[in-house]
């Protein structure tokens, strides 16, 4: 028996390098030739469903287009749903990798180009063989965007591009296919993709796993999906290992958006539920625009009256009216909008008027002290123990956030601004895995990214009596800590100078 070589029997991976000008024509051609979409429909599909995402990217980028590509998310939907239909759905996808510099196919076979390719790699997007929901999984670095003065939660996402292993730092995104994943499942997938790639405690999940986790809770079939209840989202997150929390606008009113902003400042992607009847939608809030000193004016001046008649004035970083970054499965990744008008990027009037009704926060399971109580405690403690007679009416600028104690201590250890006594005291105090931090600054210092006071709370302590959550505070000339034996605050005199603010949660400020 002999084997004859027939080229058409061997399925080879096709790859083409192109600049942005020629990308559209190439993709329309591939939609037609690989997915069997009629030319006129392929062009329409490109313009409606792919072009808005591509227009968001810088003009000078280069792209490597590969086909066939096995996408883990689409394949999961294909095997569990699309393959059971009469219509013959394609199972392969197209993948487009993004580079900041000019590339050629042969660069991937020459060692001297490897470092250049790695450093210029800015992510990828997948095109599914589905119409109109062609835009699939993507991981795109904010550096690839035309407008990129944003700071966001990012995780390293690996992939092999033309056989070379690469990595991009990005937040995962996908559009919904409206049958196996709606907006609710997509947000769950993106959260788990983020945490699963970043921390060993969590694992990425695929759509079928989301349905499986919720199957015992649902009274109807799960595909085609009609969506999920917010409590389903919270339940699934709990099953995936989080201590999830739900907050509603109706209950928390003026504090509601501030709570959301505090969690985002903590580097936690938050599920945001949007409502304008009959629309109900789920997106993720993953970051914010970078700090601009002029934004400070938008934070309201707040006061707490201290018993002897002194007024303590303050402003909260979490109440600055600024643009936040949303990952929305109906729109290109990293949409910027105010929390007061989160759907301002929609042209449809009904969508445009959506407001945030609830948020679901995926907290680490041992964070028992949540944002509202931590913020309340910090303000009351400051009023009672730090500012009496000292502030002269000048507002303190508070920045409150969660951080891992390891990352925080690492940052403090290498802060050249902080005086060595305070530094050693902070580093020597035992802390749990997560801590609440309040940095106390003012309008002049924050411009230089500096603070002049600090309160650190134990995030595992939900008992707010007798200052129990307090690990330490450092303000003016006093370092205060909680002495468990005597049950009182104890003080050490220090010479606290201005110190650098913490910027590792969102990799910037």
């Amino acid at each position, binding site marked *: 028996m002999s084997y004859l070589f027939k080229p058409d029997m061997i399925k080879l991976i096709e790859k083409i390098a192109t600049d942005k000008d020629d990308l559209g024509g190439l993709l329309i051609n591939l939609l037609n030739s690989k997915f069997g979409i009629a030319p006129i429909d392929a062009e329409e599909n490109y313009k409606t469903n792919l072009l808005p995402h591509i227009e968001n990217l810088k003009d000078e980028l280069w792209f490597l287009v590969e086909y066939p590509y096995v996408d883990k998310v689409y394949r999961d939907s294909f095997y569990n749903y699309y393959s059971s239909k009469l219509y013959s759905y394609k199972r392969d996808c197209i993948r487009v990798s993004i580079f900041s510099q000019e590339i050629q196919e042969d660069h991937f076979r020459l060692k001297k180009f490897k470092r250049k390719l790695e450093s210029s790699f800015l992510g990828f997007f997948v095109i599914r063989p589905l119409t109109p929901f062609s835009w699939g999984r993507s991981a795109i670095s904010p550096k690839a965007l035309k407008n990129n003065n944003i700071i966001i939660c990012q995780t390293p996402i690996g992939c092999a591009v033309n056989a070379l292993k690469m990595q991009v730092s990005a937040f995962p995104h996908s559009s919904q296919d409206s049958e196996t994943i709606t907006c609710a499942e997509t947000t769950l997938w993106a959260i788990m993709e983020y945490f699963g790639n970043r921390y060993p405690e969590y694992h990425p999940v695929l759509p079928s796993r989301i349905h499986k986790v919720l199957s015992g809770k649902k009274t109807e079939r799960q595909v085609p999906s*009609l969506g999920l209840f*917010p*409590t389903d989202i919270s339940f699934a997150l709990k099953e995936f290992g989080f201590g999830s929390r739900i*907050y509603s606008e109706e209950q928390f009113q003026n504090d509601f958006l501030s709570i959301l902003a505090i969690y985002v400042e903590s580097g936690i992607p938050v599920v945001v539920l949007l409502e304008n009847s009959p629309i109900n939608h789920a997106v993720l809030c993953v970051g914010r625009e970078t700090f601009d000193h002029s934004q400070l004016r938008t934070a309201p001046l707040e006061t707490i009256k201290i018993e002897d008649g002194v007024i303590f004035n303050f402003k909260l970083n979490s109440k600055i009216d600024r643009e936040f970054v949303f990952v929305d499965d109906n729109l290109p990744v990293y949409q910027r909008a105010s929390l007061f008008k989160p759907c301002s990027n929609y042209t449809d009037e009904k969508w445009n008027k959506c407001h945030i009704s609830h948020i679901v926060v995926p907290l680490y399971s041992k964070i028992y002290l949540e944002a509202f109580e931590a913020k*309340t405690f910090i303000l009351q403690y400051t009023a*009672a123990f730090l500012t009496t007679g000292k502030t002269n009416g000048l507002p303190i600028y508070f920045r409150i956030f969660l951080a891992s104690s390891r990352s925080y201590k690492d940052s403090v250890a290498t802060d050249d601004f902080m005086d060595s006594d305070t530094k*050693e005291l902070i580093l020597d105090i035992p802390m749990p895995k997560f801590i609440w931090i309040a940095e106390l600054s003012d309008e002049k210092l924050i411009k230089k990214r500096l603070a002049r006071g600090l309160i650190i709370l134990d995030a595992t302590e939900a008992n707010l*009596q007798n200052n129990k959550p307090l690990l330490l505070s450092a303000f003016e000339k006093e370092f205060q800590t909680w002495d468990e034996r005597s049950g*009182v605050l104890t003080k050490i005199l220090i010479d606290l100078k201005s110190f650098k603010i913490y910027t590792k949660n969102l990799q910037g400020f």
Partner: protein
Amino acid sequence: MSTPFNAAKRYLDQQVSKMQESKPEVGSRDRLKAMNEKMEKLREEFLIKESNSVISAKGLIINR
């Protein structure tokens, strides 16, 4: 050998000794008591807000 680190440590050891001998500041217990009362009241309000948030989220369907 004396290093800046050792010097800082010695200073801190002295400070910690002073701290252990220190007495609560006059009036601090009263402030703590007042704060405890405030926190207790705020916690009660928070628990109501928290449970109502979950209840209100049950009636909402997420579609697209």
